[in-house]
C-alpha cells in the first residue's frame, strides 16, 4: 500500500492535509486539502475548507472551493457551497452546488465525461455549415442567406472571403442605398454641432 491515504469514517482532522498520492475522505476535515493525486470524498464525509487535487470526486458535503487540475465531479447527493474550477466539471442530477463554476485549462487527455462531447460537436457543425452555405449564396435567394448571416457570425467571414459572389447578390435586389448615407453622416454631424451651441 503506502500510495493511497484514507481518512476514515470515525476520524476528524482539524488542520491542513497536503502531499502526494490519492486521498479518500470518509470522515471529516476542517482545513484545506491540497493533494497532487486524486481526492475522493465519500458519501457522508464533510470538508470545511478548500480542496485541490488532480481529479476530485465529491459525494459528501464541502464548504469551500474545489479546484481540480484535471476534473471535478460532483455526484448525486453531494452538497457543495463554494466555487468549482477545473478543465472538466461534472455535476450529477441530485447534487447541490452553490457557487461559481468555471471550466478552465486544457483537458488532460481524452475526455471520459459524458458532458464533454456535447460542446465539442458544436464547432464541428459550424465549420461544416459555411462550406454548405457558400454554394447557397450563388442561388438567387438573398432572403434566405441574410438571416443565417445574423445567426452565425462565422459565416460572415466566409461571405467576405468571396467578394466575387457577394456583391452580385447584394446589388441586384436592393441597389445599395446605405453607401451614400455613410459619407453624408460626418457632414450632417458638423452641422448639428454648429446648431447645438445656438
Amino acid at each position, binding site marked *: *500500500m*503506502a*500510495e*493511497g*491515504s*484514507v*481518512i*476514515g*469514517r*470515525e*476520524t*476528524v*482532522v*482539524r*488542520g*491542513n*492535509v*497536503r*502531499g*502526494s*498520492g*490519492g*486521498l479518500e475522505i470518509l*470522515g471529516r476535515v476542517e*482545513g484545506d486539502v491540497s*493533494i497532487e493525486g486524486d481526492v475522493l470524498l465519500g458519501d457522508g464525509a464533510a470538508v470545511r475548507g478548500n480542496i485541490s487535487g488532480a481529479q476530485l470526486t465529491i459525494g459528501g458535503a464541502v464548504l469551500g472551493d474545489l479546484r481540480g487540475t484535471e476534473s471535478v465531479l460532483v455526484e448525486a447527493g453531494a452538497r457543495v457551497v463554494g466555487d468549482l474550477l477545473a478543465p472538466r466539471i461534472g455535476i450529477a442530477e441530485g447534487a447541490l452546488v452553490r457557487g461559481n463554476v468555471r471550466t478552465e485549462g486544457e483537458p488532460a487527455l481524452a475526455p471520459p465525461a459524458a458532458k464533454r462531447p456535447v460542446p465539442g460537436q458544436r464547432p464541428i457543425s459550424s465549420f461544416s455549415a459555411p462550406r454548405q452555405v457558400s454554394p447557397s449564396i450563388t442561388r438567387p435567394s438573398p432572403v434566405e442567406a441574410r438571416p443565417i448571416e445574423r445567426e452565425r457570425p462565422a459565416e460572415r467571414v466566409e461571405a467576405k472571403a468571396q467578394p466575387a459572389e457577394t456583391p452580385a447578390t447584394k446589388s441586384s435586389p436592393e441597389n445599395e442605398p446605405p453607401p451614400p448615407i455613410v459619407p453624408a453622416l460626418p457632414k450632417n454631424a458638423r452641422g448639428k454641432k454648429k446648431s447645438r451651441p445656438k
Partner: protein
Amino acid sequence: MAGTVIGEGLTIEGEVTSDEEVVVHGTLRGTLKCGDVVSVGSGAVIEADVDASSLSVAGHVTGNVNASERVDLQAGGRLVGDVKAARLTIADGASFKGNVDMEV
C-alpha cells in the same frame, strides 16, 4: 482495512481525532487522539503528542505518548518523548529517549 491511513507522501498538520485504527506511513504534526490502535510505519514521521489505546512504532515519533493499553517500540523505530502506558516493550535495535510511567 484500516480505518484511517495516512499514506506515504501525505502530510497532516493539525489535530487528528479518531475512534478507529490509524496507520501512519506519512507525516503528522500536531496532535493524534485515537480510541483504537495506532501503527506508525517504518517511513513515518510523527511530531505530535499521541493518545491511543495502543501504539506500535516502527518509524520516528517525537512527542509524549499516552496509551491506555500498550506501547510497542519495534526494531528500527525511534521514540523521543515520555511514555505513559501500562505495558511497554522496546525491541532490540530501537531507539528511545524519555521517561516511562507504567502506573505502578
